[in-house]
């Protein structure tokens, strides 16, 4: 059954379905209960499932995330909402030293069916402490899964898959996507949680995005198409693991790749993708893998500067043209 849902509604629906099906699923976080969640994701759940399963927590990120870790060790399926990724800094011990390492350092004795939902990214002039991304930090933690849905459909699927998974999953939700709309088929069989999606097939170059930048890549591809540049667009959907097969198949076909990330360029997700594609597809590449990325600076408050500090569609189009430059001339 397909419905048009907002991104937050899709997440809300996923939580509702999982909570109804399994009593071991519970959600906790700041203002997730009575208030309904800062981005409405937990709206209505408090009334339906009660305060023990929709728990409003004090402002104690490290301890309530760690509470999720402890509960997961004994078979519960906690969904922790950290109000914004900026506050996840305070919970890094529970996420990195706890959730990611306990299954391993216990010699495989304890599963970790924990989901940590974190809104993040650059929204609208929230300034440096409330407008950032930490995906590269989480990607660097073995044992942690990082999912980055860009559409309501993926938000629905990937949150459900994350809850069903016995591995700790960080679900990065982009704040500007919460009120985007899209079709959600609740009956269809989802692809694996980490499988990348080819959003647009093309032959001239591969645009690689995730979360919000996957949508920007599609806009850029539409614009490039007007110049008869046929871009393939891949939405990664997951940053750990990364679906290298889909990526290398595409690059082996197009011979050029451009990674678009909102996170800072230095040591970001793009660096990992560019390096790995160079290793995997060196002989197929006609040019180095390029990146369009956020600037290496804290996000400015000023609106114009903020917009200039992260990738814009025009930046992607320009970078794609530059990457194809010699070929374009040859064609002309």
């Amino acid at each position, binding site marked *: 059954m397909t419905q048009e849902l907002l991104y937050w509604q899709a997440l809300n629906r996923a939580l509702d379905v999982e909570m109804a099906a399994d009593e071991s699923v519970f959600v906790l976080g700041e203002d997730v209960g009575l208030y309904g969640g800062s981005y409405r994701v937990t709206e209505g759940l408090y009334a339906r499932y009660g305060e023990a399963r929709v728990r409003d927590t004090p402002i104690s990120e490290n301890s309530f995330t760690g509470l999720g870790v402890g509960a997961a060790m004994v078979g519960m399926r906690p969904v922790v909402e950290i109000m914004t990724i900026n506050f996840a800094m305070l919970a890094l011990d529970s996420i990195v030293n706890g959730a990611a390492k306990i299954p391993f350092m216990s010699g495989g004795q304890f599963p970790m069916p924990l989901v940590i939902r974190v809104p993040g990214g650059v929204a609208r002039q929230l300034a440096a402490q409330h407008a950032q991304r930490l995906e590269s930090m989480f990607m660097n933690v073995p044992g942690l899964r990082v999912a980055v849905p860009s559409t309501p459909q993926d938000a629905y699927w990937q949150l459900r898959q994350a809850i069903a998974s016995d591995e700790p999953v960080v679900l990065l939700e982009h704040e500007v996507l919460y009120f985007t709309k899209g079709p959600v088929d609740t009956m269809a069989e989802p692809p*694996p949680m980490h499988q990348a999606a080819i959003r647009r097939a093309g032959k001239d170059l591969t645009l690689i995005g995730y979360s919000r930048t996957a949508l920007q890549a599609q806009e850029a591809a539409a614009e490039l198409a007007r110049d008869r540049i046929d871009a393939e667009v891949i939405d990664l959907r997951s940053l750990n693991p990364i679906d290298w097969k889909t990526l290398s198949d595409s690059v082996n076909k197009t011979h050029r790749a451009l990674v678009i990330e909102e996170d800072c360029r230095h040591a970001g997700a793009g660096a990992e993708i560019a390096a790995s594609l160079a290793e995997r597809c060196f002989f197929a590449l006609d040019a180095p893998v390029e990146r369009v990325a956020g600037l290496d600076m804290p996000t400015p408050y000023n609106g114009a500067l903020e917009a200039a500090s992260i990738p814009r569609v025009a930046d992607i189009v320009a970078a794609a043209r530059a990457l194809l430059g010699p070929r374009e001339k040859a064609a002309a």
Partner: protein
Amino acid sequence: MEREKMHRLLRDMMLSRVFEERAAEEYQKGNIVGFLHLYPGEEAVAAGVINAAGPSDYIVSTYREHAHALVRGVPPRAVMAELFGRATGMSGGMGGSMHMFDRERRFMGGYAIVGETYPIAIGIGYAVALRALPESVICFFGDGAVNQGTFHESLNMAALWRLPVLFVCENNHYAIGTDIHRHSAVPEVYKRAAAYNIAAEKVDGMDVLKVYDATRHALERIRRAGGPQFLEFETYRHRGHSMADPGAYRPPVEVKAYQVIDPLTIGAREIEFRYPTPAELAAVGPDNIARLTEHMISVGHLEAEEVAQIRKEVEAVVEDAVQFSLASPQPTMDDAWRHLNCNRRHEQLLQAQEVL
């Protein structure tokens, strides 16, 4: 307390003592490497607390947890083999001294980040409360750990949601090398629990019978009333913080005061065995094992010669654990990958496609 139970406490304490002294020797030989935090001096806390717990209670421990595991009933072989990093260790050689886990015995891990045990414990407590089970969670931490933010965050949540958690402070007076009077504005740790309306008690942690009773009562209160409890045990470690720390920052008179003429040491000399007089004990302060043996002898539960017998028996157990560890296989890199990916056995979706 009946004879049998007292003997159990004594044996647990002596096993812990002998195990740790042997671990120190094996460390010097290079069979154990990395960080090694030893427990001698504090045995009364592990023995008293964990013996008072039931098999369905959970234990969350710190990086000084070998004795906790032993008292909980983990085979000494598995504890020693973990120290040796062998595949037969409690955590398959993946965790080492500071990360011992035993799912079956509800031994929920040793944690090496100070202040990390509280959130884990309240999480387990939250699960217990949601399922309305008659179980409790025992959360160990040291005096140095009470100045972490998680202490306050977690005590608050435990009290707010009436979680069945027993907070157990092993106050050995030092945050590594910093005396409690130099690290805490309020050095009476138990008083802090009052800020969260948690009933708290300070107990002589060198007296295993008092530790046992206090714990038993606290666990009863948890089962009756549902909310958390807090116990502070004053204790002392004979050694430095870890093998890398000679503990030179402590006044020699203080160290001596706690290293009472130890019946274990004397027992080893066998013929010369003489139990210290109460006056001698009073002069140098209490060793927890000395205290218990004195009491047991005075109430007729123990013959002086039995101490040497028990020591011999636990020495044989520890020797066996060492030989077992030496003979045990090293874990392979395949084992490591298997442990890392252990959770995928339930995860069809990720298995469906090759990840790399």
